[in-house]
């Protein structure tokens, strides 16, 4: 923290001197290195980063890697004396860890100095991936709202709907509870003689991100977020995990237990599954005729049940950044209305709420109209110092249920102690 504080003071000093400097000078001679995930938002940014380079006479290097590598690549850099990265994108569940470890800077003074308007963001995103303990450490970059991706062409087929009515004695509707979702998926897979659902049961991240939707959908959670007592063995959680296990065993594509989102997307793209509970950001790739056989055949609906799981990414400046002024310049630029809008139009997941009201945007990405609802009924993982370990621990539980056939109740109860250990002594939770 000492280092972080020092850098902040330094940044403030730089800040007071800033008016004398032209904006372009801050970045002179220093490149901007960013580690990013290989997702459409990264592509969207890559296509317009030239503007910033031109304006500030600098170079923006984007290192795009597989998600599972990101955290492992960031930690060495952040713990080093100077960072290899000048701007960080921080996943929502790394926030607590990065804050506690003192790896990211408090941005409030910079926001105040340059009068950056943070009210343009969805409040839920700001809470999830902006502020920690009242201080702003990040500006939301994009979110990964999740929901049901399903085959519009199949479910809207009259024959399908008739069969559905015969089976369930009601008109077709998108399932509203997980129990209903479970039934419908299993039945429709059998009816169409294909996989009812594409799932990603691989550990750690894929299975956790997916199963957390079921957990939240049933109204369960990992902890009581006031007392931080584990609630992971609650009846809701047991129900959620049971449904998840039922689906992966009885309705998912073969090998779902070893699949990740890549496989989910590919299964959908090859027209081999009807449903999926997955990321909305997959949508642009489902619409890519070079990759996909289901162009214009997919639709999006919110996760059935209570809440869906929401993740998000935010921009942050590492405490050990080489040139804080330039990093901040870049964040300001990338989150400026103009640039945010361009990124959105290129297939990104905007975090600023006004974009979703833009007719041209909705016209280009109609499925985005649903996002508002999704964000309203969603919550993120608890913000705690060891939430990356929370993901690992939950993945272990899911693994023992799915692979070793431990009864959900037993597995969840057995894990309570581990969940308890994770929050012990956490400075963020006091």
């Amino acid at each position, binding site marked *: 923290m000492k280092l972080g504080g020092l850098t902040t003071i330094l940044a403030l000093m730089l800040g007071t001197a800033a008016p004398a400097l032209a904006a372009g000078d801050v970045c002179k001679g220093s490149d901007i290195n960013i580690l990013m995930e290989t997702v459409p938002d990264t592509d969207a940014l890559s296509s317009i980063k030239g503007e910033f380079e031109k304006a500030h006479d600098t170079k923006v290097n984007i290192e795009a890697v597989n998600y599972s590598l990101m955290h492992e690549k960031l930690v060495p850099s952040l713990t080093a004396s100077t960072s290899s990265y000048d701007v960080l994108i921080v996943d929502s569940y790394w926030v607590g*860890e990065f804050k506690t*470890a003192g790896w990211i800077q408090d941005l409030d003074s910079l926001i105040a100095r340059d009068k950056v308007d943070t009210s343009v963001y969805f409040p839920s995103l700001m809470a999830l991936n902006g502020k920690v303990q009242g201080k702003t450490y990040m500006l939301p970059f994009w979110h990964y709202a999740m929901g049901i991706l399903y085959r519009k062409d199949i479910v809207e087929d009259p024959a399908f709907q008739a069969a559905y009515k015969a089976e369930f004695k009601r008109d077709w509707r998108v399932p509203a509870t997980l129990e209903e979702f479970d039934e419908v998926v299993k039945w429709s897979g059998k009816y169409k003689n294909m996989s009812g659902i594409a799932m990603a*049961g691989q550990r750690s991240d894929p299975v956790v991100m997916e199963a957390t939707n079921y957990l939240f959908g049933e109204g369960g959670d990992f902890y009581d977020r006031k007392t931080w007592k584990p609630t992971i063995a609650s009846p809701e959680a047991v129900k959620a995990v049971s449904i998840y296990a039922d689906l992966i065993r009885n309705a998912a594509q*073969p090998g779902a237990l*070893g699949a990740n989102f890549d496989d989910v997307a590919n299964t959908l793209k090859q027209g*081999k599954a009807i449903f999926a509970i997955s990321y909305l950001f997959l949508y642009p790739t489902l619409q890519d005729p070079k990759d996909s056989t289901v162009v214009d055949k997919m639709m999006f609906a919110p996760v059935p049940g209570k809440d869906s799981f929401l993740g998000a990414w935010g921009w942050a400046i590492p405490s050990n950044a080489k040139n804080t002024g330039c990093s901040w310049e870049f964040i300001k630029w990338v989150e400026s209305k103009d640039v945010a809008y361009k990124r959105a139009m290129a297939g990104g997941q905007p975090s600023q709420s006004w974009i979703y009201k833009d007719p041209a945007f909705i016209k280009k990405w109609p499925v985005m109209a649903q996002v508002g609802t999704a964000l309203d009924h969603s919550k993120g993982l608890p913000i705690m110092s060891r939430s990356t*370990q929370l993901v690992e621990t939950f993945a272990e539980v899911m693994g023992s249920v*799915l*692979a070793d056939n431990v009864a959900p109740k037993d597995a969840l109860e057995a894990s309570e102690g581990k969940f308890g250990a994770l929050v012990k002594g956490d400075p963020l939770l006091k």
Partner: protein
Amino acid sequence: MTVTTTLNHQAGKRRNWAQYVFLAPTAIVLTLVVAAPLLYSVYLSFQTYIITYGMGDFAGFGNYQSVLADDFGSVSWVTLKLTFLCVTIEFFVAFGLALLLNQPHLPGRQFYLIILLTPILMTPVAIALMFRLMFNPSLGIVNWLIGGLGIPPQGWFGDPHLALGTVVFVDVWTETSMMLLMLYAGLKSMPMEPVEAARIDGANRFHILRYVVWPLMRPVIMVTLLIRMIAALKSYDLIYMLTQGGPGKETETISFYAYRLGFRFLDIGQAAAVSFILLIVVIALTLFLLRVMREN
């Protein structure tokens, strides 16, 4: 005369001294790059050190107790199974192929050898990706091929019952070639006279294999097996790329467990403890290997 003797004495000494100069660079480098980090690692294994919180207190055997109580048993069992299956299968395949390739009058054996040795060149990462592509349950060619034989599609890496076996298959594909090379070189350097003598004594192929080749090759075989076993115990790349230890913990090895503790849980103390236990096992095996090598 006395003076000459002393001078000459020094000359003799100089030769002795030079050998240390020859050994020194390697000794210094290995001390710096291996011994030093190793000692540091031992030190870390007795500390409470979670990267997020920074260095904590002295932990005593706490880290060891935690990992032994936690997953260490399960990952050891997986490592053991994996090592045993891989090494056994690879040995029999490689030894069989080496024997076939060692028939002096078989046309095309050089051609076979070239092909069979290619996996040595490939990075396990690429191999893993290649097989993930082919074993992909819904999109891979393997399920399509077995579909032609009337077998329903399998989950392979995602199926708790098949995952370990599929990993073993990939490992066999990858590592057999190295074993083949060692055994083939061993067969090539084996004296042919005893084999010829046995042929004249009326031994058939099986007899020759059992009573001549096997005993003559025993030292080479033992060393090859042990080297491969030690390598298999620490295997990491394939697991990382193929399954990340899943499904569940079906394919989680000690190395991967240590990695996960260190770089996912950021618990350096526990990770160091696990890796240190692994090290002890490997050192024990290495010493055994050396004894075998000395005996032969």
